[in-house]
């Protein structure tokens, strides 16, 4: 469950974000430079908002009023970078294991590297290095690496933009499947309205820092109907 309401002053405009997401996929769509990535980075803690509040599962990770700014490493947020950001000097297996919580931190852990690699169909790439695998495979490794940290929220920054049409379609299905399986909220940044339409339970359009909701989640719509 994510609740974020914050502002960030940028050189050319002020970014305003108001996001509420309990489950499913929120697609953030808009042209380049609209502030999509900045929103993700503020939520993850890679950038600091000018003011506002960000809560994950009712726990504030940022609050300008209360002076809270939880370090990135303690936010339990998975982040998939646009260029995958795989560590080039480590094998796929080492990459995926990098963020694995230590046993004593989560004693009931059932998630193993093999589970995650299998789930993303990259088991056979274990010993390969990032420069030995294709773009689509890199994206799967990047997803596996983020999921291995057992995050409470997954942020994806244009994860499919560098891939060819076929790989892209396969991975779109894969993302829907993963979300249904993992049951944590995903925020997906894309500049492709069609992709947003296909993946987003909720869609927010962003232009020069101003947001406009163009699709509400079904749950939200249901609640609205009940109120009416």
């Amino acid at each position, binding site marked *: 469950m994510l609740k974020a309401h914050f502002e960030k002053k940028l050189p050319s405009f002020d970014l305003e974000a108001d996001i509420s997401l309990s489950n499913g996929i929120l697609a953030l769509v808009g042209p380049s430079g609209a502030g999509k990535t900045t929103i993700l980075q503020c939520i*993850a803690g*890679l950038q600091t908002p000018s003011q506002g509040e960000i809560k994950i599962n009712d726990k504030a990770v940022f609050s300008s009023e209360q002076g809270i700014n939880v370090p*990135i*490493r*303690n936010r339990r*947020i*998975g*982040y998939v*970078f646009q*260029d995958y*950001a795989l*560590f*080039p*000097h480590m*094998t796929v297996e080492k990459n995926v294991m*990098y*963020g694995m*919580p230590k046993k004593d931190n989560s004693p009931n852990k059932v998630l193993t590297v093999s589970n995650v690699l299998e789930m993303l169909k990259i088991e056979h790439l274990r010993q*390969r*290095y*990032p*420069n*030995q*695998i*294709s773009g689509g495979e890199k994206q799967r490794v990047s997803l596996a*690496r*983020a999921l291995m*940290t057992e995050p409470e929220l997954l942020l994806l920054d244009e994860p499919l933009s560098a891939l060819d049409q076929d790989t892209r379609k396969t991975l779109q299905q894969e993302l829907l499947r993963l979300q249904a399986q993992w049951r944590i909220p995903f925020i997906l940044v894309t500049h492709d309205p069609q992709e947003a339409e296909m993946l987003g339970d909720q869609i927010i359009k962003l232009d020069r820092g101003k947001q406009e909701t163009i699709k509400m989640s079904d749950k939200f719509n249901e609640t609205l109907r009940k109120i009416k």
Partner: protein
Amino acid sequence: MSLMDFSFIPIILSLKVAFAAVIIVTCTSIPLAGLMAKREFLGKDVVESIITLPLVLPPSVIGFMLLFVFGKNGPVGKLLEQWFHTRIVFTLAGAVVAAAVVALPLMYQSVKVAMENVDPNLEKAARTLGAKELRIFFTITLPLAWNGIVAGLVLAFARSLGEFGATLMIAGNIPGKTQTMPLAIYFANESGDTRQASILVIIMTVFSFMVIYGLNRWGKGSQKDRKGGGDHA
């Protein structure tokens, strides 16, 4: 003169000085470069200029400064004398200090540039994966700056081995004690002993070549291991 008259001591002294200086330079320049490449702080430009200064100053100026600092009445020299009853001037330790000071900026620059070139997204990714800064430095930044570190090692070693001016001023030219190869070559040549000078010149050239060649090969080989080698499958 037979080979028996030839003195190997300058070679041994030079190697001792160069290895000791490289260890000091490595231990200081890597954390220093990490700090300067990844952090912003007040007076950073001043610190940067001070580290790089020995690169542009004539060795005699550095020698003079070191004599001032480490001399009998210098701020550090006095403390060493009082606390440890030891001195650095006219000892092999002096030669090590001189070599380290002139070699530091070379290794520092090389490592810093390599660290700045490490994609910041990789460090950000490590942060989102829960890594602390020290772990990121040792597992991401340092291995990816490997080439720069090897290049820096080569430069620092070569510079330490060849240090002449500052060494002469702070360590003097005491045969068997502080007379390193470059000094031995200079003074042998001055006194007309061309044979001793030329043997040392050949040894120094061949040895320097071998070290640099070996380090370069090692750097390339280990980089290939780290990057996995091979082409995109």
